């Protein structure tokens, strides 16, 4: 089989295009990244995550600044959420975190309300002020229960 520069060039282009497509799917769409430890990693404990998932966004004023890395239990059986934020963010140390819902039945995400302190959060710090997720079913249950009680009285 003799060399054929034109054919070889086209094959090279094809392989590059295919690899480019795989890279785009992996990096951009799939969110695969080689440097995991680049961001600002902070922790927060919640009484109730209400179906928060890993890779859920973390937002400040509605702008995405990071994502949830993992969710586990701490030693007091509260949900401990690890999130990584953009590394150049300066977030006051008395910032509070709350789990909110996009729309009535949408996905859960974490919203940060900035505090006013001069000290900033460092990687590995803990956000102490947290507000848990509101679970709609439980609210409805409470409402029905309280109206029942009022009727019986």
């Amino acid at each position: 089989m003799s060399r054929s520069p034109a054919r070889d060039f086209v094959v090279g282009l094809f392989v590059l295009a295919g690899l480019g497509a795989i890279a785009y799917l992996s990096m951009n769409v799939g969110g695969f990244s080689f440097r995991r430890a680049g961001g600002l990693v902070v922790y927060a404990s919640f009484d109730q995550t209400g179906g928060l998932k890993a890779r859920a966004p973390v937002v400040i004023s509605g702008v995405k600044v990071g994502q949830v890395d993992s969710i586990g239990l701490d030693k007091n059986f509260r949900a401990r959420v690890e999130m990584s934020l953009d590394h150049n963010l300066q977030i006051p140390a008395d910032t509070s975190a709350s789990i909110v819902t996009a729309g009535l039945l949408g996905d859960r995400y974490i919203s940060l309300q900035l505090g006013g302190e001069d000290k900033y959060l460092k990687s590995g710090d803990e956000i102490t002020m947290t507000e848990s997720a509101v679970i709609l079913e439980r609210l409805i249950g409470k409402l029905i229960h309280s109206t029942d009680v009022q009727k019986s009285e």
Partner: protein
Amino acid sequence: MITLVQDLGAGVLQFIAHLGRITRFGASVVRAALTRPNRVRIFVSELFNLGVLSLVIICVCGLAVGMVLGLQGYNTLVRFGAEQSLGAVVGLSLIRELGPVLTALLATGRAGSATTAEIGTMVATEQLDGLRMMSINPIHLVVMPKTFAMVCVMPLLSALFIVFGLGGGYLVGVVLMGVDGGVYISSLQSAVDYYDDVAGSLLKALVFGVLVGLIATYRGYTCAPTSAGVSSATTSTVVVGSVSVLIFDYFITALWGV
């Protein structure tokens, strides 16, 4: 009644014999790949035949499937007021399922049948016997480059199919139907996970490449040396290849949850 049972038994035995032969055939292809000289030149020209020449059909079909998904997904989602999730719907269905499967089906029809016909014609015109006369192993010279080219080409084609499909979904959803572009992209990005979805999709495409490559070359290599034999081998490549792709797809999805 007894002949019916006999037929069934004969069919099963034949199926198992085919399974054993194709496994031994695959082993001899792998063994040929490990012996010198390497056939890089032929491999590259097979990449051209199987990959580059399939590009147009893959890209056009990817775009069309993405556009249909965008339209259907939008029409369904808009009833629930959830058209913001269009990117997730289009992306997940393309990456997890439609990309690898449709690419494998198209490649079976486009490249697999051509491979079988080529090798089958060489069998029918005794070209492979001629190679054996010169003590050149036909598996080494003819079959092995084709099989490995199919294995390498399939993930690349599948990834291109998916990218074009995502583009088609964007075209219909965002440009035509007026979903916000940023919302489309961000719902796509937050729904798709690297390990669960993208890596699994590439794994599927790789398995399908092995499957289609082996079936196409095996059918050509073992076809009856007549023109009727070549035609029936080509037909059987398309039928067996497509069916086994769909069956394997179910089992990969069920076992690994891709």
